[in-house]
């Protein structure tokens, strides 16, 4: 596992020597705060929980995660360092995993840094901290899926802009897949079973279930499988690039 570790440390360090990390953290924390307290009616609801906070996460990730992942492979392909990295003794999977873990840990750090909100809600009332923990877990898992999508699509292209846009589009499609508007659109054209399938693809649905404090194995599996699936697709894309 040493090469995975080395790649992960290098990636994490590169977040922090370039402004990427600080810009991300500041914007994430400020937006999370504003959206929770103003748009989310945190006080007016009169409930001691973090629902308004977690509800905003998918939309924050939608903008911010592609910004983190777009450079992951595209930058290496453009700068020629991909050749350096892939001629070092490591497998494509190890390289992919190292980069993925770096981004995932980084988002984990961003989530940890939202602790003042948690303190606030504990100060104001007595929330169910188990539910809040589940919310954090669900949010982190969802971020992992977004990162895996971004990692895969960054491997597709050497243009960071293209990687950003593709990732955002795929993520928004997966978020909205279960919304009634989308399902209504397919009503009548697709068989009911397929529509149900589309509904189950929805990230929002699985995330909301976890964030409500219900840890269902199916929801956890959904996120784990989607991470594995997208990362595998990314590895295959990288491999394809070597043969093309």
């Amino acid at each position: 596992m040493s090469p995975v570790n080395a790649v992960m440390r290098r990636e994490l360090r590169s977040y922090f020597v370039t402004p990427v990390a600080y810009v991300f953290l500041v914007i994430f924390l400020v937006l999370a705060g504003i959206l929770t307290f103003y748009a989310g009616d945190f006080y007016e609801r009169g409930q001691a929980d973090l629902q308004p906070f977690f509800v905003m996460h998918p939309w924050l990730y939608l903008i911010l995660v592609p910004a983190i992942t777009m450079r992951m492979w595209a930058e290496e392909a453009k700068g020629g360092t991909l050749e350096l990295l892939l001629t070092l003794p490591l497998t494509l999977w190890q390289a992919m995993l190292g980069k993925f873990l770096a981004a995932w840990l980084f988002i984990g750090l961003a989530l940890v840094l939202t602790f003042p909100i948690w303190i606030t809600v504990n100060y104001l009332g007595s929330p169910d901290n188990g539910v809040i923990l589940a919310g954090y877990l669900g949010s982190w898992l969802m971020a992992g899926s977004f990162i895996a999508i971004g990692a895969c699509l960054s491997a597709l292209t050497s243009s960071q802009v293209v990687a950003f846009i593709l990732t955002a589009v795929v993520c928004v499609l997966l978020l909205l897949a279960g919304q009634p508007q989308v399902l209504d659109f397919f009503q009548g054209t697709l068989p009911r079973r397929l529509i149900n399938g589309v509904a189950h693809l929805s990230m929002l649905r699985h995330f909301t279930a976890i964030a409500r404090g219900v840890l269902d194995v199916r929801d956890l599996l959904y996120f784990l499988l989607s991470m594995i699936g997208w990362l595998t697709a990314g590895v295959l894309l990288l491999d394809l690039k070597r043969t093309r």
Partner: protein
Amino acid sequence: MIETDQLTRCYGNLTAVDALSIRVEPGQVLGLLGPNGAGKSTAMRMIAGFLVPTSGTARVCGYDVVREPLKAKRALGYLPEGAPSYGEMTVREFLQFIVRMRGFNADAGYRRFDEVIHRLQLEEVLELCIETLSKGLRRRVGLAQAILHDPPVLMLDEPTDGLDPNQKHAVRQLIDMMARERTILISTHLLEEVHALCNRVVIIARGKLMADATPAELEQRSRYHGAVSFSAPGSGMSQEMLGRLPQVAAIEVDPLDGRITVFPKPGERILEPVETLLREQGLEVSEIQLERGRLDEVFRQITTNGGTGALTGGRA
């Protein structure tokens, strides 16, 4: 050892490397020569395991680069074209990343690290960001990366490209020093480099192997091999007489400085007869030289179809 067998790589319709079979043994420094776009870098990328061959095989120290990529990569130190590295890292961070990637334990890693930065004289720039370094320094960082794990096989893609003469000299010394027990493959389009470094030359053009020889053998293919050149003012008369010598094939005069080159017939030695004749004529010869042959001319002959290079008389 590096072996390739019918190594081929196509990009769509273009065949970048065409059935290339070479074998480089320990102790050899093989210069891979060819015009730009001849397929040098593509061949090296396949041997390094970055590109997958369309057909054919490549082996490093006996390990097939497709079937046992990690073993092959461990045996190989590789400097990709342009010496890419992570610009936002300092030299120290970058080389320590390589130390970790190469799987050294802490002690051995630090020893190798110290040794390599000393060898490439990188002590003073350790804490600088790579993107702020000059081209020459970046190249040295790339070289440090390639030799860090003291590999038995070293492959350098244009190692001295863009360096000033002093830096080139330093890099060549380094390669010379490493050459003894290692297998070294370097690509270049600088012919001076071949003389300075290589004991074997492979010339490729349009992806195909065109020549495989020692530098001296290549020079013998030159029209200039065995030719005698001299500068002698007022030698108009003797030119005719030289032309009448039975061993002489042709005479050319450089239009710029009036230097005369006398070409031998195949297999003939002409230095002595020419010298004798000049002495008999009582000519002041300021300097006379026996030519070894000119690699650039051979290179042109081999890599351009018609061999037009041989027809030009001017000195390169």
